């Protein structure tokens, strides 16, 4: 029971941090509840499918199927997060100031919501597939799902969801005028961390071998395996022993997002008044 509690909590907690941020980012956007719930549901379904085919997936591409799959969905999430930030830089001010017709704002807002819902789906799919595989293994070993396993999993799920809620509640206490800056930064760091993680998978698959030496080791201060290490890994991509390529890609992702946000931001004065 304890094992399933710990594993379920750990994975839900990681996905929960991301969902909490997405909820805070979309505060006040109409229809966000449906999009996020849809993203979670799609992620749970995807997790079951991925868990079911893990054996087959591993065998693809000379045994590197799992790594390639992870790198691809992480790369996709990075694009979605980056796109969201750039989109918000362009339209966020208008949305927040309610200068647009409400109807149009909803249509425009839903594009950005779709991107964030996809990120939620990917987060739930990645963490969820590990939960499914683990619980399935335990159930198979014990000759069926036991009450202890289910209770442990349920408690883990509730505690993990609590982290999601705390993340959200913590972020929404930030005054509205700072919220955009804070969430943009969080989303950019989230994207950079995911990009660096995708690089780790490509290195593991031996697809990427350039600059793969470890640059520093901070495991004596904060280990990847600790809860704080895991939380920071999910949030800002903390790795205690990063490779040079991971650092390059991390910095590059942040730079590209920042530059694109600057490029596409429209000063409020230039916007034509239609009303």
């Amino acid at each position, binding site marked *: 029971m304890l094992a399933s509690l710990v594993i379920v909590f750990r994975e839900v907690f990681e996905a929960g941090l991301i969902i909490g941020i997405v909820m805070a980012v979309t505060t006040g956007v109409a229809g966000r509840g449906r999009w996020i719930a849809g993203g979670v549901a799609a992620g749970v379904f995807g997790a079951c499918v991925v868990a079911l085919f*893990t054996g087959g997936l591993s065998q693809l591409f000379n045994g590197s199927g799992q790594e390639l799959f992870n790198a691809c969905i992480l790369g996709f999430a990075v694009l979605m997060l980056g796109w969201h930030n750039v989109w918000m830089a362009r339209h966020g001010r208008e949305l927040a100031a309610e200068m647009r017709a409400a109807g149009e704002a909803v249509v425009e807002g839903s594009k950005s919501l779709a991107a964030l819902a996809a990120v939620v789906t990917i987060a739930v799919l990645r963490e969820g597939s590990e939960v499914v595989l683990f619980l399935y*293994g335990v159930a198979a070993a014990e000759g069926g799902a036991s009450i202890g396993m289910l209770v442990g999993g349920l408690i883990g799920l509730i505690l993990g969801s609590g982290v999601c809620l705390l993340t959200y509640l913590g972020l929404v206490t930030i005054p509205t005028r700072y919220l955009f800056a804070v969430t943009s930064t969080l989303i950019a760091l989230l994207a950079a961390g995911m990009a660096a993680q995708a690089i780790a998978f490509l290195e*593991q698959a031996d697809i990427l071998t350039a600059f793969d030496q*470890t640059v520093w080791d901070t495991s004596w201060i904060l280990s990847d395996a600790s809860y704080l290490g895991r939380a920071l890994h999910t949030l800002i991509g903390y790795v205690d022993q990063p490779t040079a390529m991971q650092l390059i890609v991390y910095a590059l992702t942040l730079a590209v997002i920042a530059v694109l946000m600057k490029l596409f931001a429209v000063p409020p004065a230039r916007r034509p008044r*239609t009303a």
Partner: protein
Amino acid sequence: MLRESGDKPLLAKKTNMMRNTPATPVLVLLASMFVLSAGVARTEQPVPLSVTIKDHKFEPAEVHAPAGKPITFAVKNLGSIAAEFESDALHIEKVIPPGGEATVHVRPLEPGRYNFFDDFHRATQGFLIVP
């Protein structure tokens, strides 16, 4: 009626968005990085290592490899529960279903003692020793 009146500005907005799609430069950047990295792929023959996981133990729990050579690490999960073969120092993270086998690549290493473990069952620990 309402829809029709809202159609035109929406369409104009859409073409505007497509012209400004930020995904393109990012994609070009990523693509060029892959090309760059492919150019410096390793030519050295990797050193094969293999361990099995059974009854929540690595067998052998200690493996040895020479320094400065790439390694391929084959892990067979003979247990009845899925394992997550993981190592922070070796940059490995891979789920292995029960009865499954996985191969991961490890970069050339400096001499040292590298820890690996089953993230689903932390007590399952092993070491890669590079003299």
